[in-house]
């Protein structure tokens, strides 16, 4: 019994077409047409370019995925190529919070506090199934974990996998870059 060889292209079809999720300029068409706004918008875009290319993550690992996060920062994958290799231990200097691992109920308030300590504009990446919705540790009537990081902090990028490969984390960073460049504003 043979299989049709599809190589590496065997991407599955999602129920929700993620590729179509629009990344819209929140400034809107009318505002963008206003010349005065446009001139400032160029500065805004410049700043966003800076932000997008300088995403300093918080040194912060929760569980298994943290190892893959470390691997992504190491020589083989080298997050530093995208300017995201400066892991800051202090939340005050970080831009991105990579939630790498299962969030236990005891850890949840700490994560929220860390998030509040980070200066805006800031972003969060949920890495791994556990931070998306509890992952393998979710079962009926479970008591230990928070089912999804988005119950604690506003998450921008979701990366599934258990754990995701470092490539997936890099892909997440690239998508976050796209999102920032699309014109997200300060207040969030």
């Amino acid at each position, binding site marked *: *019994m043979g*299989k049709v060889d599809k*190589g590496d292209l065997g991407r599955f079809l999602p129920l929700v077409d993620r590729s179509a*999720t629009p990344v819209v300029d929140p400034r809107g068409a009318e505002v963008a047409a206003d010349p005065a706004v446009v001139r400032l918008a160029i500065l805004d875009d410049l700043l966003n370019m800076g932000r997008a290319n300088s995403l300093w993550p918080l040194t912060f690992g929760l569980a298994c995925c943290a190892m893959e996060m470390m691997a992504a920062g190491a020589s083989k994958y080298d997050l530093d190529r995208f300017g995201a290799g400066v892991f800051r231990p202090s939340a005050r200097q970080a831009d991105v919070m990579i939630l790498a691992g299962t969030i236990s109920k005891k850890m949840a308030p700490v994560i929220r506090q860390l998030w509040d300590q980070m200066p805006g504009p800031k972003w969060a990446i949920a890495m791994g*199934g556990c931070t998306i919705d509890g992952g393998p540790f979710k079962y009926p009537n479970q008591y230990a974990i928070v089912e999804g990081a988005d119950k604690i902090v506003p998450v*921008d*990028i979701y990366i599934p996998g258990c754990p995701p490969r470092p490539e997936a984390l*890099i892909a997440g960073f690239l998508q976050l870059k796209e999102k920032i460049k699309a014109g997200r504003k300060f207040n969030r």
Partner: protein
Amino acid sequence: MGYFGKVLSGFGSLLTGMRITFSQFAKTFFGRKNVTLQYPKEQPKLAPAFRSAIKLIRFEETGTHDCVACKACERICPSYCIKLSGGKVEGIKKKRVAEFEMDFSLCSLCGLCIDACPTDTLEYSKVYEEAGYNRDWRVDLVAEFREYEAEFVEKQRVIEEKAATAKKAKAEAAKKAKEAKKAKEAEKAKEAEAEAADTAEKPDTAEKPPALEAKPAKADAPAKAEVPTAEVPTAEAPKS
């Protein structure tokens, strides 16, 4: 070792360390060799065993999957990430899956579902760079097979009809030779075999191909020519 000896040997060990780091520096800087895999530009070589979200296998013979909605995978899954439904399809004996939904965010990639599958129609996909703005990671496994479903049912109906007529002819021949009672028993056995595919236990599939391939090969010849080329969306690497 005296005071100066200690200072000197300590200093020497520092120089050794600096020599090593400089040799690595020279390998990268002058030798232009680094160990970095430039991911979006270069893709990693994935092992054949690589595990990602499960998908249904498309068999060449039929151009579609062979899921009979037995729910063995749904029962074994430790993470409750598979939901499927299906059953009898009008016109054919074989059961078919109607909805097969899998939540990748819950999956722990243990492979128990693949082991459990009686028709061996599940495998790991090779997607390793999924990331998105949405927390919904449910995957519709049968989506890419829907358009072939009617075609398959039609083909399967033809095959089964042929098999039935062949069986009838055989039975008639047998009737002539033997008693009608024995022929009835044979039919019962056939039905039991078809049902065997639906049970959760794992049969020795290596020797015994699924029910479909057990049917006469002559019916397959035209079907093979019509196998549609697998039109699957390509995994687009995020451009930087």
